[in-house]
């Protein structure tokens, strides 16, 4: 996984060639499923029109109303497909990378708002894993908060799978850096 060849596109700006990527993590799939569920409600509206509205109003089956309904249906379907694509893109483009040196948060709040934040693991002060709610406990997902030394803001992993393992990984990597720092400092 370490990007030693130049042909591999770096995952984030400033990625070092010898930097080892330990974890690339996205929100839990249930987050995407919830958004798709809302999308399905809008899609069901289309089925509702065909199933209930058209039989209720037989005039909608006669021209020109049938053509008008068909064009509304086509345009609505175009918006639905675009919305589904947009939901998936926003899920796919929000991720965090944990390397042996730092944590990188790549976030896409909307289509035109892309941010990449990073901090070095050596600045870690406190790591907290939080699992909330029935779904969180049942499906084992939650938030991981990383408190940094220099900044007042907490670094947050939002609704990620296995939050305790993620927190443990960050602490293990921090300890490795800490030990390496002490060894090199002592020589």
């Amino acid at each position, binding site marked *: 996984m370490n990007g030693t060849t130049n042909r591999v*596109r770096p995952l984030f700006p400033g990625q070092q060639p010898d930097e080892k990527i330990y974890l690339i993590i996205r929100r839990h799939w249930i987050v995407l499923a919830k958004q798709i569920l809302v999308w399905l409600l809008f899609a069901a509206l289309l089925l509702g029109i065909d199933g209930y509205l058209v039989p209720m109003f037989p005039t909608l089956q006669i021209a020109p109303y049938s053509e008008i309904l*068909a064009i509304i249906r*086509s*345009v609505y379907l*175009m918006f639905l*497909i*675009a919305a589904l694509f947009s939901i998936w893109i926003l899920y796919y*483009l929000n991720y965090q990378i944990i390397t042996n040196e730092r944590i990188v948060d790549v976030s896409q709040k909307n289509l035109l708002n892309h941010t990449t934040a990073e901090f070095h693991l050596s600045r870690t002060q406190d790591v907290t894993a939080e699992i909330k709610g029935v779904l969180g406990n049942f499906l084992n997902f939650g938030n991981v908060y990383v408190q940094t030394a220099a900044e007042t803001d907490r670094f947050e992993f939002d609704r990620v799978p296995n939050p305790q393992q993620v927190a443990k990984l960050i602490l293990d990597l921090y300890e490795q850096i800490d030990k390496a720092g002490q060894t090199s400092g002592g020589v």
Partner: protein
Amino acid sequence: MTIKLIAQIIFFLLAAFIGLYSAIMIYVLIRFGQSRILGMIISIFYLIIIIGLYSAAVANFDLISFPNL
């Protein structure tokens, strides 16, 4: 004639909005996505669907007979 013109303007403005929005989505996916190949495959798949729907919408639009005012 006026009704047809208004309907055409609304229809093509909606189509242009979808087209622009789709172009931005594809650009963002290919530029910021981890895998360009995956981005391109999904984008092509999306484009096939959206172009098909647009063609269906245009065909439906042409079928509408507007009253002559």
